[in-house]
C-alpha cells in the first residue's frame, strides 16, 4: 500500500467547537499522528470556502486520505464527501471525526478533557482512514416483474397499479377466488357503498388484465435470491375444474353429495365439496375442495363441458421477479377464546363478519337478520366492541375498524328493523377519519342507537332462547341486564402472515405477528429486506380506504425500483479471503440475510444481499471474512490510536 498522506481539517463551528476545545493544541497534536501530512483548521468547514480548502488541499498536497473533524456525519457526511470527490479522491478515503456532538457539546465544563477527547477521536479517524479502501457502489440488474401475495383488496390494488404501469405481475391467492374479506362485506362505511358493487369490477379487471398472471388456490412455498432477482416457487393446488371450460352451470354442485360449512358465509350456510365461493368469483369457475371430496365421480358425469378432472395433481411453478408485495390480510380474533361471551356455545352470539353475511343480500338469509337458533326475527340486538381488542389478556392493540363497522351494523339493522332496539357496549368511540365522526353522529341522531359506555360481564341463554346480556354502564355505575335476540362481537383483527412465509421473505414481524415496516411514518410500506413491500392489514389494522392507499404506495415503491432498471447499493459489505476460509460455515449460519453461501467449499458473499452488519466478521474463527473498511485489523488500529498517549 502506498504511503499515507492524510489531511485533517478541523472545524471551529463558530464557537461551538472552538469555545470548548483548544484548537491550537489539537492542531499541534494531530500533526504528530502517523500518516498525517497536512492539518488545517477553519471557522466553518462546511461553508463554501471551507469545502474549497479541502478540495484544493487534496490536489495540492497530493492527499490520499482526509479526516474532517467537525459535527456528526448524519449532518454533513455528504457535504464533505462531495468536496473530497471534487478533489479527485474516492469518498471512502474520507472519514469524519465527531468532535462537536461527542466532545465539545457534552463536556463544556471540562475544556481540558474535551480537548483530550477530541484528539483521541481524531486519532481514531486518522487510523481508520489510513486503512480504508476506495470503494465503488455496487450495481445490480432488476427483473421487471412483481410478485403480489394475497388477492384481497390490497393485493388487487397493488397488482392493478403495477400492471397499468406496464409491469407484469404474478398474483398468488390461496383460496379459489380473489376478492378477500372485502367480498364478504355488505355495505361499507361511511358512504354505505355496496362492497360487491365496488369490488367486483376491480376483480374483473384483474382477471382480464394482460399484465396480470393470476394463480388461485396457490401459495408461495419458496423464495430464493435477492432484491431485483427473486426466484419464487409457487405451489398450485389442484382445482380439478378447468376454469376455461367451466360455464358455471351448477349441475355439478347439485349432484355433489358432500356438504361442509361454507367458509365464505363463515359457517352460517353449507356448501358442497364442489363449489364456487360466490357468484361473482374470479376466476369464474367451480373448484373442488380436495380435503372433503370423496371422488365419487357424480360431478364428472353431469358436467356438460367435461371440465372436471379428478386426477389433477398439484403443480409447482417457478417465476422470476424483481420485487415482492406481501398483502396476506387479516383474520378475526378467535371468538372462542372469549368464553364469557359464549361465542361458539350459543348460536345467537356471532362475530362481525357473520353479521356482514347476514346483512348481505347474497348471504345465507338473503339479507334478512334473523336469530340463528330458530330463524325468528331479531328485535333486540347487542353489539360488543373491543371484543378481544385493547385487552392485555387478548390483543393489547386497538383494531381500529370496529367502532366504525359497528356503527354501520347498527344503522343497517335499524333500517331493516325500525322498531328494533340496538345497544352498543363501547369503551371509547374512535371515529377519526374523513366523514367518520359525521357517520357516528348520524347513527345516534337518526337511529337512536343506545351507546352504552361499559362492558359486558357475561352472556347466557334463558329458557325462551333469548340471550341475557349482563353488563355495567360506567356512566351511571349501574348494573345492566339486556335481553337480546342476537349479540354481535366486534372481534379484533389479527394478521394472517404465516411464520414460515415471513421467515422465507425475511419480513420481520412485531410481537403480534404484523409485518414490521422499516419506519412507521417515513417508510411505511418497506420492510428490512430491500425489494419486499407490505400492503394492507398484514402490516396493522386498517380499513378499506387505508388499505387501498397503502397498496398503491407499495406498488409505487416497487415501481420506483423497477423503472430505474438497476439497483445501487452501499459497498460497505462483507468480503471473503478465500485463501483463509476453511469452510466452517459459521458465517452462513450467523448471517441474518442469508447473504453468504458456500461455493466450492468456501464462503461467498452475495453483494446484493449483504447489508453490511459485520456479524460474520465478528464470528469468523480464522479472520477470513471481513466487513469492508471495518476489518478487525482496522478496528484494532483505531482502538490503539484512541487509547495511546
Amino acid at each position: 500500500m502506498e504511503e499515507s498522506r492524510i489531511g485533517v481539517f478541523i472545524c471551529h463551528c463558530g464557537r461551538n467547537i472552538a469555545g470548548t476545545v483548544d484548537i491550537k493544541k489539537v492542531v499541534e497534536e494531530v500533526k504528530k499522528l502517523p500518516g498525517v501530512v497536512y492539518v488545517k483548521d477553519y471557522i466553518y468547514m462546511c461553508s463554501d470556502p471551507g469545502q474549497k480548502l479541502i478540495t484544493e488541499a487534496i490536489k495540492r498536497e497530493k492527499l490520499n486520505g482526509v479526516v474532517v473533524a467537525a459535527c456528526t456525519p448524519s449532518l454533513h457526511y455528504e457535504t464533505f464527501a462531495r468536496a473530497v470527490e471534487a478533489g479527485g479522491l474516492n469518498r471512502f478515503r474520507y472519514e469524519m471525526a465527531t468532535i462537536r456532538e461527542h466532545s465539545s457539546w457534552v463536556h463544556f465544563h471540562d475544556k481540558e478533557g474535551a480537548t483530550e477527547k477530541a484528539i483521541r477521536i481524531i486519532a481514531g479517524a486518522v487510523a481508520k482512514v489510513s486503512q480504508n479502501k476506495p470503494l465503488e457502489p455496487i450495481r445490480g440488474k432488476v427483473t421487471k416483474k412483481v410478485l403480489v401475495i394475497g388477492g384481497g383488496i390490497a393485493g388487487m390494488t397493488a397488482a392493478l397499479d403495477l400492471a397499468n404501469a406496464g409491469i407484469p405481475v404474478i398474483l398468488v391467492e390461496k383460496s379459489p377466488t380473489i376478492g378477500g374479506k372485502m367480498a364478504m362485506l355488505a355495505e361499507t362505511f361511511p358512504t354505505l357503498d355496496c362492497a360487491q358493487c365496488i369490488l367486483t369490477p376491480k376483480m374483473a379487471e384483474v382477471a382480464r388484465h394482460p399484465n396480470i398472471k393470476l394463480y388461485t388456490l396457490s401459495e408461495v412455498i419458496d423464495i430464493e435470491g435477492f432484491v431485483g432477482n427473486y426466484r419464487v416457487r409457487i405451489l398450485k393446488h389442484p382445482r380439478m375444474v378447468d376454469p376455461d371450460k367451466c360455464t358455471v352451470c351448477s349441475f355439478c354442485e347439485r349432484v355433489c353429495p358432500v356438504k361442509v360449512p361454507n367458509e365464505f358465509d363463515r359457517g352460517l350456510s353449507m356448501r358442497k365439496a364442489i363449489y364456487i365461493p360466490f357468484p361473482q368469483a374470479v376466476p369464474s369457475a367451480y373448484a373442488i375442495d380436495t380435503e372433503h371430496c370423496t371422488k365419487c365421480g357424480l360431478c364428472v358425469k353431469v358436467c356438460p363441458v367435461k371440465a372436471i378432472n379428478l386426477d389433477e395433481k398439484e403443480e409447482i411453478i417457478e417465476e422470476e421477479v424483481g420485487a415482492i408485495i406481501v398483502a396476506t390480510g387479516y383474520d378475526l380474533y378467535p371468538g372462542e377464546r372469549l368464553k364469557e361471551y359464549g361465542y361458539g356455545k350459543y348460536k345467537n352470539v356471532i362475530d362481525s363478519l357473520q353479521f356482514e353475511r347476514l346483512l348481505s343480500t347474497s348471504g345465507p338469509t338473503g339479507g334478512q337478520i334473523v336469530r340463528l337458533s330458530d330463524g325468528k326475527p331479531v328485535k333486540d340486538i347487542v353489539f360488543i366492541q373491543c371484543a378481544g381488542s385493547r385487552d392485555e389478556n387478548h390483543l393489547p392493540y386497538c383494531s381500529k375498524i370496529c367502532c366504525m363497522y359497528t356503527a354501520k351494523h347498527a344503522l343497517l339493522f335499524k333500517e331493516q328493523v325500525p322498531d328494533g332496539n340496538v345497544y352498543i357496549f363501547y369503551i371509547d368511540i374512535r371515529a377519526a377519519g374523513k366523514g367518520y365522526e359525521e357517520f357516528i353522529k348520524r347513527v345516534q341522531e337518526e337511529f337512536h342507537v343506545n351507546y352504552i359506555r361499559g362492558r359486558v360481564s357475561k352472556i347466557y341463554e334463558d329458557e325462551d332462547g333469548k340471550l341475557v346480556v349482563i353488563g355495567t354502564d360506567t356512566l351511571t355505575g349501574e348494573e345492566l341486564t339486556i335481553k337480546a335476540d342476537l349479540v354481535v362481537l366486534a372481534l379484533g383483527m389479527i394478521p394472517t402472515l404465516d411464520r414460515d412465509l415471513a421467515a422465507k421473505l425475511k419480513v420481520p414481524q412485531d410481537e403480534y405477528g404484523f409485518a414490521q415496516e422499516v419506519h412507521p411514518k417515513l417508510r411505511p410500506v418497506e420492510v428490512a429486506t430491500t425489494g419486499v413491500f407490505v400492503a394492507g392489514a398484514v402490516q396493522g389494522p386498517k380499513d378499506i380506504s387505508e388499505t387501498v392507499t397503502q397498496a398503491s404506495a407499495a406498488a409505487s415503491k416497487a415501481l420506483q425500483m423497477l423503472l430505474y432498471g438497476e439497483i445501487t447499493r452501499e459497498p460497505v459489505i462483507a468480503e471473503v479471503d478465500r485463501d483463509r476460509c476453511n469452510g466452517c460455515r459459521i458465517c452462513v449460519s450467523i448471517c441474518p440475510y442469508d447473504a453468504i453461501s458456500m461455493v466450492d467449499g468456501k464462503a461467498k458473499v452475495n453483494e446484493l444481499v449483504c447489508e453490511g452488519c459485520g456479524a460474520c466478521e465478528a464470528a469468523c474463527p480464522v479472520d477470513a471474512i471481513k466487513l469492508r473498511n471495518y476489518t478487525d485489523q482496522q478496528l484494532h488500529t483505531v482502538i490503539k490510536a484512541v487509547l495511546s498517549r
Partner: protein
Amino acid sequence: MKLLYYPGCTVKRNAIEYEKSSLAVLEKIGVNALELDKWYCCGALYSLAIDDLMKHLGAVRTLIYAQKKSREENTRDLLTICPMCFNVLKRVNKMLREEPEKLETISSFMDEEEPYKFNINVVHIIEVLNKKIDELKKNIIRNTGDTGVSVYYGCTVLRPKEIGIDNPEDPSIIENLLRKLGVKVVDNPYKSMCCGAYHILDKPELVYNNSKTIVEEAYKRGAKVIVTICPLCLYNLRKTIETFDKKVDVKIIYLTELLAYMLGLDHVLDKELIDFFNTVFIHDTKINNSMRREA
C-alpha cells in the same frame, strides 16, 4: 397412585362427610391419599399485598413438611379437597417459584425447617378424578337416570386463571366428568360466580342474594341436585334455600357424595342422603346392567 393429602381445618370440623366420601371414592379407584401427620393453617385467603410475606408462612411450612414426606413416600403431589386450601397452597407455591427472593425472606422467619426446593405440586381432587375417569367409569354401579344435576364451582378452584383448574368464565371440567359417567348435566351460567363466601358472617343478605341467583338458575333449568366442592359454598347455598319464601326442590351436596353413591360406597353416606338419592335418581336397570357389563 399415591398422593400426599392436606385436609385443612374445615374438612376436619364442619365437612367430615366431604372428606369421608372423597377418601372413599379415591380409595375405590386406586388412589392412596396419605394424610400429612403435621400441617399448618393455610390462611384461608391468599394475601394480595406484595409486602405481606408473613401471611404465607403457614402455607410455606406446610409445603416444607410435605417436601419431607415426599421423599419418604416418593410422590410430589399434594392433594387438597377444600378449594380455599387448594387456592392458597397453589398460589403460595407459584409465588415462591416465580420470586425465589421472597422465599429467602420468608425462610428467615423459620429456623427449624429445611429449605424449600419447590418439590411440591399442589393438586385438587377434581384434577385427580379427571385423570382417573376410566377407573371411575369401570366401578360405577348406579346411574342417575334422567335427573338433572347442576355443578357449582365457586371461585377458588378457578381464579386467578393462572392457578385455576379450568377456564373461569365457562368451566366444564366437572360437567365433562359427570357426563362421561352418564349423568344428565344441567348448565348453570352462574356456576363460577362467587356465592358471597365469608360474608355469611357479617353480610348474610349479600350471600343470600348471590346464592339465590345460583340456585334459582340451576333449578329453572331442571336441576334437582347441585353438586359443589366447597364446604362454605355448600353451607351458603343450603342456608340460602332456607330463606326462600317458596320451597325449591333442589338439594346441595358434595360432588364426592354423588360419586360415592354411584360407586356404591354406601358406608360413607348418611342413610338420609342415600334415601334422597334413591328417590331422586330413578334407575333404569337396563342401562345399569349394560354399564356393569362394559366394566
